[in-house]
């Protein structure tokens, strides 16, 4: 199968995925392994008074029961931003699901039986599980102020205040100001592969297998906690069975590693789906928006206040809030903007990265608010976006990377595909919204590529292929450049002892950053091939080009594979190329670095609302992204469609339900619904724009998060258009829609409920 860039060959690693041969972490077994089980309490906040593990230790086969008392004091803590998360609860439970102890036994049955016999005496304490409760005067502090020394906010539940803006919102004139508050629920990643971890003593060092997206980051965390040098911490990261951000950062690897070192044997921990709900989620948010406009629809200012409800430990949530809210003013020409975003600590599961990284929450609010403004001004909702959209090259944030794509082209294409210029069928409504997300702001990716004597290729890349298809894309780049068919290319990933450093697999970076590193490694090899061709054929090196699989000599083209035999000589051997992509930090930039690219998407929806049941049916879902260049068009479609459907989850059905004590009541697959094959839009239309204007190989840009960003606003816009109801809280469950329909019917005017009371004139 050819590796040509721009084609859609079968997935590299695809055969293992359709035969059951693909080994995920839970499929790996080590000799002598122990099975671990976590001990948790049915509370969100409690003081731990005592732990009695005698009965658990007496269970045959139990090898180890670990709690805070078995760990060094002070309790080892870790986290990607703040070192705040304890390996095990340290005298206090601060969220439902926090492990207070863990058992390791010869079998899973024994571990589970013993975990149930660990007796924990505790005193339940009041829990704060909402923004209002966390900010109330006298609210219990979620984190001990000693964890944040020197922080003036340490005596509150506000972790930080992120402020970004330009111009002076308060003195910017506007004809109308449209204002509203919008909420976004807690949702969870629900990768079909629950997180799994194995750790084993490794000849004085340690080996860790994890479903992790960032093996090198995990290696650093484990080295820090164990005092081992990086070279003695070997992280294996088999392809995760779905990540979506929930597998970016260390969760229970430190615990399992310390248990394995203590036991002197391998320890494995495979979470249940319910336990993943208690380990990872997206931040909920309450977003207040004031949008100022002129009567002709020209935007004057955007004033956004966003409170994100994060969990008891920060994980990467502070970055999610800072980066996710940074583009809250949207991809628009905006004279002035003010964005204040706060991560609010609460006694809930620590929120972490999740596809879209903080952007979907503010996008829902800002794009919905713009819809209300358009309706208020009597301007078409497509038109108001097109007239304000930043043009390519325009600095829509005064100091930042200018608009890097023809975004209007994307919007026009989406409008065309949904048939915006034609009236909708009776009973149906339409919505349209745009989404923008900052790509990576720093990055470092290395790759080594080996061109073997027979012309086959081995690529080493520390990216994680969690389904997005990075392995295939990188194989296409190397195969195309070095002239090898796709099945002659092997991509080695997920072993920190073998594969060179990669910072992380996130922010839709891998095609651009790792792709460029692989391309640079191939160029390195091509430079050697030029010298070889010059020597073997007696031609001046300057007269030779090597590209896309061939050496181009003045009088002929020679496939690379044919050059290798004579070039390498009697001993054979191979050519080794190295590549590096570095995206340096810029400390003065609000995000610590300028975005390498923007992900831009336009989503247009046609929907109908069942007046009797409140059920929303999408008759057409159009998603169009600016991808620069589709290295693998089929994978681009799959990623965009998958992101679009994932966006339908939090838009229409997904949300955690907490009881008054802060316990999650809908853990697991029965009570928490994600989209199935029966919940799809009647028609899904995905398309992309390719202007080869991105910073990645062949002009590519990062993609795969874009199609999720603005789904909610587009769907809610279609519901409003179809049924005349405006709902400001996600998800748009049938019950919520039904209630809004009844409210509408009670309203004599028939106007959209809630829209007027949130609107005020002038500023």
């Amino acid at each position, binding site marked *: 199968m*050819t*590796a*040509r*860039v*721009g*084609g*859609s060959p*079968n*997935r590299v*690693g695809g*055969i*293992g*995925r*359709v*035969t*059951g*041969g*693909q*080994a*995920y972490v839970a*499929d790996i077994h080590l000799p002598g392994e122990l099975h671990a089980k976590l001990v948790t309490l049915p509370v969100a906040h409690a003081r731990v008074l005592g732990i009695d593990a005698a009965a658990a230790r007496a*269970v*045959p*086969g139990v090898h180890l029961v670990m709690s805070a008392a078995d760990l060094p004091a002070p309790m080892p803590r870790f986290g990607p931003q703040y070192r705040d998360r304890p390996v095990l609860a340290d005298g206090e439970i601060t969220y439902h699901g926090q492990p207070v102890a863990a058992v390791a036994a*010869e*079998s899973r*049955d*024994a571990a589970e039986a013993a975990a149930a016999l660990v007796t924990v005496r505790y005193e339940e304490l009041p829990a704060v599980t909402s923004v209002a409760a966390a900010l109330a005067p006298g609210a219990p502090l979620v984190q001990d102020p000693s964890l944040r020394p020197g922080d003036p906010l340490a005596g509150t539940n506000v972790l930080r205040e992120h402020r970004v803006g330009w111009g002076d919102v308060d003195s910017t004139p506007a004809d109308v100001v449209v204002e509203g508050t919008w909420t976004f629920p807690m949702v969870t*990643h*629900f*990768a*079909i*592969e629950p997180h799994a971890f194995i750790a084993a003593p490794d000849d004085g060092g340690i080996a860790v297998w994890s479903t992790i997206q960032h093996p090198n980051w995990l290696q650093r965390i484990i080295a820090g906690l164990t005092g081992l040098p990086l070279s003695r911490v070997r992280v294996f990261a088999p*392809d995760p069975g*779905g*990540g*979506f951000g929930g597998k970016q950062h260390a969760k229970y690897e430190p615990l399992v590693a310390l248990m394995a070192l203590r036991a002197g044997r391998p320890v494995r921990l*495979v979470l*249940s*789906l319910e336990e993943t709900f208690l380990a990872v989620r997206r931040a909920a948010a309450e977003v207040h928006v004031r949008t100022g406009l002129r009567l002709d629809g020209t935007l004057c200012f955007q004033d956004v206040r966003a409170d994100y409800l994060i969990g008891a430990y920060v994980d990467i949530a502070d970055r999610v809030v800072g980066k996710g809210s940074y583009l809250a003013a949207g991809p628009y020409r905006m004279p002035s903007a003010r964005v204040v975003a706060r991560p609010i600590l609460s006694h809930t599961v620590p929120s972490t990265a999740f596809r879209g990284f903080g952007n979907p929450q503010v996008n829902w609010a800002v794009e919905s608010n713009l819809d209300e403004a358009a309706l208020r001004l009597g301007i078409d909702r497509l038109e108001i976006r097109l007239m304000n959209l930043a043009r390519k090259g325009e600095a829509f944030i005064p100091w930042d990377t200018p608009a890097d794509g023809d975004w209007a082209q994307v919007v026009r294409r989406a409008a065309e595909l949904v048939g915006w210029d034609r009236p909708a069928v009776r009973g149906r409504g339409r919505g349209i919204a745009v989404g923008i997300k900052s790509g990576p702001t720093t990055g470092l990716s290395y790759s080594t590529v080996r061109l073997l004597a027979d012309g086959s290729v081995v690529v080493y890349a520390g990216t994680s292929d969690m*389904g*997005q298809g990075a392995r295939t894309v990188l194989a296409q780049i190397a195969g195309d450049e070095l002239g090898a068919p796709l099945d002659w290319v092997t991509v080695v990933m997920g072993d920190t002892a073998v594969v060179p450093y990669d910072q992380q697999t996130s922010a839709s970076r891998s095609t651009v950053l790792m792709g460029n590193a692989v391309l640079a490694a191939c160029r390195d090899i091509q430079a050697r091939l030029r010298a070889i061709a010059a020597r073997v054929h007696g031609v001046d090196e300057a007269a030779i080009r090597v590209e896309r699989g061939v050496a181009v000599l003045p009088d002929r083209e020679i496939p690379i594979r044919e050059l290798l035999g004579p070039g390498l000589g009697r001993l054979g051997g191979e050519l080794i190329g190295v590549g590096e992509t570095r995206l340096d930090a810029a400390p003065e930039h609000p995000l610590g670095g300028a975005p390498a690219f923007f992900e831009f998407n336009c989503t247009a929806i046609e929907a109908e609302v069942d007046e009797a049941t409140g059920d929303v049916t999408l008759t057409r879902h159009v998603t169009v992204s600016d991808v620069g260049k589709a290295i693998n*068009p*089929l*994978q681009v479609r*799959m990623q965009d*469609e*998958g992101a679009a*459907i*994932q966006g339908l989850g939090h838009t229409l059905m997904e949300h955690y339900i907490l009881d008054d004590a802060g316990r999650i009541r809908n853990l*697991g*697959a*029965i009570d928490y619904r*994600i*989209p*199935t*094959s*029966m919940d*799809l839009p009647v028609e*899904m239309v995905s398309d992309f724009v390719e202007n080869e204007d991105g910073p990645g190989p062949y002009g590519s840009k990062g993609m795969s998060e874009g199609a999720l960003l603005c789904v909610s606003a587009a769907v809610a816009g279609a519901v409003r258009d179809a049924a005349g109801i405006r709902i400001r809280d996600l998800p748009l469950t049938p019950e919520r829609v039904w209630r809004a329909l009844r409210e509408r019917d009670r309203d004599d005017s028939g106007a959209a409920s809630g829209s007027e009371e949130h609107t005020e004139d002038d500023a």
Partner: protein
Amino acid sequence: MTAPGETRVAIELTVNGRGRAVEVAAHHTLLEVLRDDLALTGTKECCLVGECGACTVSLDGRIVDSCLVLAVEADGGSVTTVEGLADGARLSRLQQAFLDRGAAQCGFCIPGQLMAAQDLLDRIADPTVAEVQEGLAGNLCRCAGYEQIVGAVLAAAGHADDTLLNGPASDPDAAR
């Protein structure tokens, strides 16, 4: 390893055409026995409540969530797992369609999807889009590659309109 108070029962299964005698814990599910006792790890574990479909296998000609079937209930039964779909190295028509159509992304749900889809095709040779969507409704895919999965099932059935969902497979060289 025998856990406290555990009863062990000898059962016989035919798994992917091969007779297997195995002593199982009475409370263990077919899923646990397949994965842990028989090392057939292609069948996946996720929700354990019969909602996600990752553990779907065929038992005596009908598909079951193997997390909801006790292994002793399957005694004497014939089980087909994802490992039993290919003929040696030759993929089944359905597996090949999944591969060609890009139906597998992260791949974790795919063994269950394949088993459910094969069952559907065994019952309905030429299903409609709606029939495929309904037939796979019990198999969650969080990558949400449903368009490609449904397209693959239709392609395996030789459905005339299978390009409707995915468009024709692209010709890489033509696209260069």
